[in-house]
């Protein structure tokens, strides 16, 4: 009696093992987890560590540093007494990265801003993938008129520059809010940038999904299912969708990175997250007017964006390497 060899691990388990072996991807994941965790704990930091309200103007206020009361807006040392500069990085819990032009704690706003930036980009990426998957599968599987209409619609959307498209939509919705029948979305709701960013990136995700479905439609197992009279919805749900999932997973981090950049750009232009709420884009905008005296206000959120986008791209590459079987075969050969 010989012992049976254990069954080979499933494709997902194999992929996860592959991903775990990719040091760069794991490091990127760790960075993402660390940043996300920090941002989630923003209220704790603001209330218990920095002891500051990052949403209230405080230019006339002061803080205690090493037992001394220090004005948050500090007079410039010049004979004409011209101008005041926000306090710079203190090295203490309060105002760790200094203050912005409204006397608010930049470090606390960075964490709160990160919450919004990450929330918007992740939700936009998920929504975009859902819409792109729906459109891509419908176009690729049903073909004919459905494909023609959806593909031309995507072509039109693709033809408009992403940022121009997003800015146009944002200007309209940010000034008026959004009313869709009984649903009213306030102008300062985060739902607005989420939906706008998701919409503008749909063609970029739907195209590759449609291509994959076109190939899958000709696959033997799909043909067999259709010959057996399996309803179309079952074919889509149980034969097509599982085979598209890897594409969606690979696209996820990349779309999130793009969404983060789009969100920052819109917020920088005052048509994304609305004050007094913060995002990394709005903090860069706040720092623009302080670039000569307090460059850290703009540099810190800029670095955060760079770090997260880089990490997402590395993670996306790692996922692609781990999930793309053909690519793995090519590499092994």
């Amino acid at each position, binding site marked *: 009696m010989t012992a049976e060899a254990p069954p080979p691990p499933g494709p997902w388990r194999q992929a996860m093992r592959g991903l775990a072996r990719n040091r760069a991807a794991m490091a990127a994941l760790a960075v993402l987890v660390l940043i996300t965790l920090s941002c989630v704990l923003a209220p704790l930091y603001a209330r218990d560590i920095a002891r500051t309200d990052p949403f209230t103007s405080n230019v006339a206020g002061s803080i205690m540093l090493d037992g001394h009361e220090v004005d948050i807006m500090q007079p410039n040392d010049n004979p004409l007494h011209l*101008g005041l500069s926000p306090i710079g990085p203190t090295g203490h819990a309060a105002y760790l990265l200094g203050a912005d032009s409204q006397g608010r704690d930049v470090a606390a706003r960075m964490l709160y801003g990160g919450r919004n930036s990450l929330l918007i980009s992740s939700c936009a990426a998920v929504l975009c993938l859902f819409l792109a998957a729906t459109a891509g599968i419908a176009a690729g599987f049903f073909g004919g008129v459905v494909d023609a209409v959806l593909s031309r619609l995507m072509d039109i959307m693709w033809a408009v520059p992403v940022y121009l498209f997003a800015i146009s939509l944002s200007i309209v919705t940010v000034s008026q809010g959004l009313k869709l029948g009984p649903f009213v979305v306030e102008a300062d709701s985060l739902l607005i940038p989420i939906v706008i960013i998701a919409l503008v990136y749909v063609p970029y995700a739907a195209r590759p999904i449609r291509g994959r479905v076109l190939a899958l439609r000709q696959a033997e197992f799909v043909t067999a299912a259709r010959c057996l009279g399996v309803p179309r919805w079952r074919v889509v749900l149980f034969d097509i969708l599982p085979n598209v999932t890897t594409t969606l997973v690979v696209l996820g981090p990349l779309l999130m990175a793009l969404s983060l950049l789009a969100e920052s750009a819109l917020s920088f232009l005052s048509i994304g997250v609305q004050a007094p709420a913060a995002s990394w884009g709005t903090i860069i905008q706040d720092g623009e007017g302080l670039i*000569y005296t307090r460059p*850290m206000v703009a540099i810190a959120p800029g670095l955060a964006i760079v770090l997260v986008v880089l990490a997402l791209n590395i993670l996306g590459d790692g996922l692609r390497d781990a999930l793309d079987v053909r690519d793995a075969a090519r590499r092994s050969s």
Partner: protein
Amino acid sequence: MVQKQSFYVGYVLAALCAGTAPLSCAHAQPAPAPRLATPSSDAHKGGTLRLAAQNSGGTLDPQVSYISLIKQLETPVYDGLLTFPKFAGVKSQPVIADLAETVPKPEDGGRTYRFTLRPNLHFSNGQVVNVEDVAASFRRLFKVGSPTAGPYYSHIVGADACLHDPAHCTLAGGIETDPATRTITFHLTEPDAEFLDRLAWFHAAILPANTPPYDTGNIAPPGTGPYRVTRYDPATGMVLERNPYFREWAHDAQPFGYADTIQITFGLDPEGEVTAIENGQYDWMYEDVPLDRLGEVGSCYPEQVQIYTLLLYYYAALNVRIPPFNSLKARQALNYAINRHAMAIYHGGAAVATPLCQLLPQGAPGYEPSCAYTKGASPAHPLPEWQAPDFEEARKMVRESGTAGQKVTIIAPLEGRYAAMAMELRSTLASLGYEASVRSMTQTVQFPYVQNSDNHVQLALTGWNADYPSASTFLQTLFACASFRPHSDNSPNMSAFCNPETDALMNKAAAAALTSPADSTKDWAEADRALMAQAPAVPLVQIKRVRLLSKRTRNAIVTLNDEILLSQLQVR
């Protein structure tokens, strides 16, 4: 060399990590206190004065343009019958004669003014200035649809007809001329205490009678001043050269210019302008020094900085007809709670902005320092200046008004320092218990929007700048019953405030200006206090202009009305 570079890179990185900019000023000069320059004894004529502005100001037509840049550039190009004196001073001055020989005394109870034109005046094209040019210039004001034709000159007999049918404007019965004696007589439908000020206003420039009756756009009509516009391209720049026909007739009215040429370049942003002036590439910039460069110019170039008061303040107009500010106590509460010191910080601190808690700014006729809404004061017992916010009193008043918890939307312009001021207002309202939010829009949209009562604006953040030193510009224009025009985008009374008692006080002050200017000044001060007792607005700050001049520029003469006189700047 390599070592130096790495040292510099290290220094920059260290500075960035410390959160401060790597700025230094090795050539800092000893710093005098801010002052107004006086003409220097070693006057230097000639050279080219190089100016920089972010954008052009559009049309050059002096009867059409309402842009302060164009007004400042064309002040040495055009003259009116009267003018505001061109000598240094921060107080409002009475008008003086310019093309007219003297300032006339009103006749017929203030309904008639008789001027005599100076002899031997020439336009920059060589044409002699005659009385018909004066009459034609006033008719042209209506024909070209000058923005102040209605508000400023509608009291001239025949102006009504001109406003209804500008193309056929004759001002019949309104202006009489006699070429033989060079007299021009104005007849008004009713006394206008500010008529002489309005004749000194930029739009009342005297142009040749044959100037086309439409906006001349990029072409500047001939004027009588020491300079003429020889080139203008709104995309790139403008050049002013000497008017060969100019001779100085009254130094205080239109002085001889020092520079041979004045060259203006458009397109630099304010940050770039500051750097260019520091490097000696330009001599003057139109825009204010950006906030984050104030410390640098104050430290490194104090002798090149000019700081002067403007008749410009920022305020929050409270709509007295809709909740919550239809409650006097709610309006007073916000006046008590607002931190005016914080508002001054947003403009660069005490050297640049002054907390303001009255509706007449410093420099305006009738200004008497008074603050009813500060810690330890009340409308009945005002203090001379703002001390600190009084939150205790403010919260008590909000409780008494029963308005706590209501929604308040602040409508503010997107541009400049408005955003920070709006956020400060939002924070203050929130701390008083209101559910406050800010809605921002570009200034060109916001200004008409907040004036229209159909938009039901609760609180509008805005600024007001006087065309000339006058109390009525601030009080009557902004708070008189007649200034509130429902459903109109042109209703400067944004508070929709109308109180017969304060109206009567203002009318009394305006009427007294014709007969007893001293009484008028007292009456305006009383009207100011009476209005503040009703708190239709929250005055915030009055600001000063901070101008940076190049090292080679001398003789900066600052007036309340014309700011720095470009014709008087000397360059070496």
